[in-house]
């Protein structure tokens, strides 16, 4: 569901601490940030630690722990958030293969709601 639109490549760019991408919530309603169980980013086949991913939404930045504890602020349907990924080491400018897994904790689903997207994006 909405896998096709999860990654927003236009927002991808290098940052001082690593890189950023745009992301949409792959779900048909908004949820509190606490319900976003996992955000896992894979770059060129390497799975990056989830603790290195922060989310910028509604003008605020949440690291993993802050996100897990945020019961009020919401990621609304269709809203583009920025995912800021800390990454040391060199990141060559140009095309990269980006993977994004988002796992939601939805009360009425007996199973985790995991959605996975992958695409080549330009990170400059």
């Amino acid at each position, binding site marked *: 569901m909405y896998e096709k639109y999860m990654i927003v490549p236009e927002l991808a760019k290098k940052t001082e601490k690593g890189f950023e991408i745009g992301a949409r919530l792959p779900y048909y309603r*908004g*949820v509190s940030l606490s319900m976003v169980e996992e955000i896992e980013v894979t770059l060129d086949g390497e799975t990056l630690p989830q603790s290195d991913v922060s989310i910028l939404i509604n003008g605020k930045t949440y690291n993993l722990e802050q996100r897990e504890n945020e019961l009020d602020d919401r990621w609304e349907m269709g809203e583009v958030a920025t995912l800021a990924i800390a990454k040391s080491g060199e990141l060559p400018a140009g095309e990269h293969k980006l993977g994004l897994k988002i796992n939601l904790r939805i009360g*009425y689903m007996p199973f985790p709601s995991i959605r996975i997207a992958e695409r080549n994006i330009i990170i400059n």
Partner: protein
Amino acid sequence: MSSNIKRAVSLYSYQEEFFLKKMNLEDCIAAAAATGATGIEIVGEQSVPGCPKLPSDAFVDQWFGWMDKYKVTPVAHDMFLDYNKKKGHYWSDDEAVESFKQDIRFAHKLGFKVIRVIVNTTPQIIEKVIPFAEDHDIKLGIEVHAPWNINSAWMERHWDVMERTGTKHFGFIPDMGGFCRRLPRVQVDRMIRNGADPEIAKFVCEQHEKGIMAEYTIFEVSRMSNRRIDMAVAELSRHNTFVNPLSLVPHIDRIVHIHGKCLEMLEDCTEYSIPYNEVVAVLLKHGYNGYIATEYEGNRHIQDVYEVDSVEQVRRHQQMLKNLGCGI
């Protein structure tokens, strides 16, 4: 031709365009009204930012302004209970009740008369909430969604609450997705695109149409293939149930609203999987007099390769309901 069954549109139907910001909330209301539907349903947490927090007075004014402008009525709000909203903590009944009440306040403020209660809500919680719903004149409707049906054990426990309390503010909301005589083609085709064996898919579709119990089909497929995607095709038969539409009859007076699920409306304004003519005939004959709200859900199965046209799908579904004698 007209009848006592009224037509509504759930704005959920336009989720693809709404998600992509091709349509805003007013556009959705306008599109619904343009089909001739007179009622509006929303998933509050989809259509109204911040829901279930109470919307601002400005929003409320605008909302009722749209209702007037497009000559439609608020009909139903769909709520959820996020039991595990907080990581590692499962809501107590009191917490669930408080969340539920907030949805009632939200629905009441926007003029909705019905709340779609999510299927995992326990009978005990609903029983605790009924007085509050009565005070706000909101009818609660537990959604009877496949693979449940209106006579399932779980629904019988809710029925027991309805009987014991004698309330007029709790009933059923059948989702027409529980009457899939054929498997939805858009789901099967997508699985084939994802690698499912077309021959196995064909077999599963045939078994389903023959009315073979899903467990038998799943067992047969498990002997043909050990690939997960093939098993997933077999399990479509478990999730897209068909039951005799007559199963609704003993509960007609307890049906407070209906979800007119559709996944693929054909050009001739029939649904590929669901024999709406048969279900609506039962509803008409036995005097159902609430709304059927179009709930288009095909987008998720085709968005990977096709352009989604929710507006046209909803238009066809409304035309079908009209053809079958629902609404004006």
